[in-house]
């Protein structure tokens, strides 16, 4: 430390010359990387054929990144199809994608960007439930119609707002209600639940506990696990001796470790496993360490393996999104898709199209008409636009109901053993968004 009384300039660590060089390099990089796509598109066509802008909130990074990748591919495929068939109300659809990092705070910022900076007509695509909880309120404040593809029960519970919809994918409450009777009848009545310690996991915990109780069964242990956990052996001693079924639903990068450690810990003496494919989305069932899953059962929204006699809609859908009959990418067999979730993007985009056409949507002034037109949708037949199956939409709770599937794993391949009816997953609506002001 200088203690002399002379005032001497401090020894320069970075000279002006090198600082200017750095700034110049930075500016050059910024210009080179500048993407004129986002919000600055110029159109060769006339002003009247401006595209419909859909803000796609995608988990490109963070713990949801595996899903984000496939959501993006499915969305691109769906939008290409829609544009090839003439777009919506004669206008092309443009997707503006923004990464929310699977982070609720960032999600709210992205929603704001869609509404104010990119001037999007709607927002769409959010998956992880905690991000939905963080982003949807902002969409409501900004009056941006917001179509999530999430599975969380938050939309249907009435805690969000009239601008938020989930019309393309069923919610956890419906899924577990549909599963409970089959589990109680075929596997056992004393269930030990292992679930992630956040909103999506709590939906499983709360609704399955109630559903299995209604079947005369009980949950004998609840084991919540942080979504970012990497080591699971420490939780297994909590599994009680009289457990008849281990129910597992895991998210995050460590799901493979979870199944592997379950196998190491229990060996062959273990209760039947009932898991949700969420534990294994984007993971090859033949991965080393997953032998433990042999014979176990999985819930799937849309079965990854096409089976011996796939429906024509499934064949069409797979060819468009680039997935083979084993659920892997056509260009890379090691790249397994998130097949039970990504169909939600395809179907939601077609719902947006259907609603916009029913409302005669021309621009943001027609927002209210768009909301009302979406709420008016009831039955959705199975088709190329809805390949997962026929569905029922409840406009009051902004949530769609559909079929669920139970798959058994044999030799690393899944075979559907049961498909539920839509009625088996219905529950009494808990709210009515249509009564809220717009």
């Amino acid at each position, binding site marked *: 430390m200088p203690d002399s009384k002379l005032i001497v300039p401090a020894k320069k660590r970075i000279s002006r010359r090198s600082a200017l060089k750095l700034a110049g390099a930075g500016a050059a990089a910024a210009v080179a990387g500048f993407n004129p796509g986002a919000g600055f598109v110029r159109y060769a066509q006339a002003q009247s054929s401006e595209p419909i802008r859909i803000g796609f909130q995608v988990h490109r990074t963070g713990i949801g990144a595996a899903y984000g990748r496939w959501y993006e591919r499915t969305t691109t495929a769906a939008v290409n199809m829609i544009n090839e068939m003439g777009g919506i109300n004669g206008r092309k659809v443009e997707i503006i994608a923004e990464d929310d990092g699977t982070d609720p705070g960032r999600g709210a910022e992205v929603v704001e960007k869609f509404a104010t900076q990119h001037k999007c007509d709607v927002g769409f695509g959010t998956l992880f439930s905690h991000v939905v909880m963080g982003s949807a309120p902002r969409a409501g404040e900004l009056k941006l119609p917001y179509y999530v593809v999430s599975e969380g029960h938050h939309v249907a519970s009435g805690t969000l707002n009239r601008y938020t919809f989930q019309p393309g994918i069923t919610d956890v409450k419906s899924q577990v209600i549909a599963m409970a009777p089959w589990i109680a009848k075929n596997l056992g009545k004393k269930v030990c639940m292992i679930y992630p310690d956040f909103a999506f996991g709590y939906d499983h915990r709360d609704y399955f506990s109630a559903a299995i109780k209604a079947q005369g069964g009980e949950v004998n242990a609840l084991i919540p696990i942080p979504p970012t956990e990497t*080591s699971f052996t420490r939780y297994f001693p909590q599994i009680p001796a009289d457990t008849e079924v281990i129910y597992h639903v895991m998210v995050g*990068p460590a799901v493979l470790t979870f199944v592997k450690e379950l196998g*190491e810990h229990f060996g062959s003496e273990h209760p039947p496993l009932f898991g949700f494919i969420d534990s294994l989305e984007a993971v090859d069932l033949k991965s080393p360490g997953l032998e433990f899953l042999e014979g176990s059962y999985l819930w799937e929204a849309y079965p990854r393996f096409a089976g011996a006699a796939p429906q024509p809609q499934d064949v069409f859908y797979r060819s468009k999104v680039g997935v083979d009959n084993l659920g892997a990418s056509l260009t890379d067999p090691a790249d397994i898709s998130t097949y039970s979730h990504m169909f939600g993007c395809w179907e939601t985009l077609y719902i947006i199209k259907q609603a916009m056409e029913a409302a005669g949507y021309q621009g943001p002034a027609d927002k209210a008409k768009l909301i009302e037109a979406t709420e008016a949708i009831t039955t959705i037949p199975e088709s190329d636009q809805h390949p997962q199956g026929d569905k029922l939409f409840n406009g009051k709770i902004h949530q769609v109901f559909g079929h669920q599937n139970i798959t058994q794993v044999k030799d690393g391949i899944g075979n559907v053993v049961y498909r539920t009816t839509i009625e088996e997953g219905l529950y009494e609506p808990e709210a009515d968004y249509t009564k809220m002001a717009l």
Partner: protein
Amino acid sequence: MQPGHPCKAAHPLAFFPHLLLALLEGTVAAAVLALAALGLSLVFGVMRVVNVAHGEFFMLAAMLAWWVAKMVPGGPLAGFLAALVVAPLAVGFLAFLTERLLLRRINYDPEATIVATIGLLFVIQQLALSLLGADAKPVAAPFTYRIVFPWFGFSGYKLFVVAASVALLLGVWFVLAKTRFGLIMRVTQFDRETATAFGIPVNTVYSAVFVAGAALVAVAAVLIVPIQQAHYLMGLDPLLMSFIVVIIGGLGSIKGSVVAALIIGLADGVISMFFSPTLASIIATLAVALVLVVRPQGLYGQAPR
């Protein structure tokens, strides 16, 4: 599996089997901690700089282990051995570049190093994301062997990691205590100016130590990745845990790092299993706070002169 077939394995575990499992898990955790923190302890001890990108070196080595295993034919063992060679070399080279192009330019100034290595952390993390993707990447262990206890099974590979960790720690101790290179490092750590006066090329020693620290954490990552998976965000946890170990053990003391890793690892194993992992993390962090207040130089560190 028939319906209503209860859990045959004797769960929930009685107290002693439960404790055994907790101690086994704790020992593995301690081994992992010690390995990960070793490099940081060395670097801080000799150079007195904090490398915040330490966790990213770990992540990079884990990603390389996955990539090498994919490229090398001949099964997991061949991939593992190849990764043991490739990853430390590659990460060591990156450390060398960092030291030459970054740390030397800022003259090893402590605050500037922290800021610069934070930047490096983000660069490495996002490069891994961009080039290798966001999925978790599983790496098969070089061998799978399930040790069967009467109450539960345990992975033989995890115990191998403990043995390898002990061997590595002994190796590092041997180099530090018994070789000339180790002597030079200890001298540089003790008093830089006097070392220079004795003709020791301190800058070269710094380079060597930084590279050695990175190579050590790379070896740790190659050993550990079959237990977890490689993921671009995986560097944050080892970084935090390494800091906790180094602060509690004493900056610059290998023995301190080992003792601290043992204490924290075993406590973590036992508390996680009998109570909850969150409580274990809370206690570890509180321990750091306590050490900083009561004995800032850590258990075995030198008191500030």
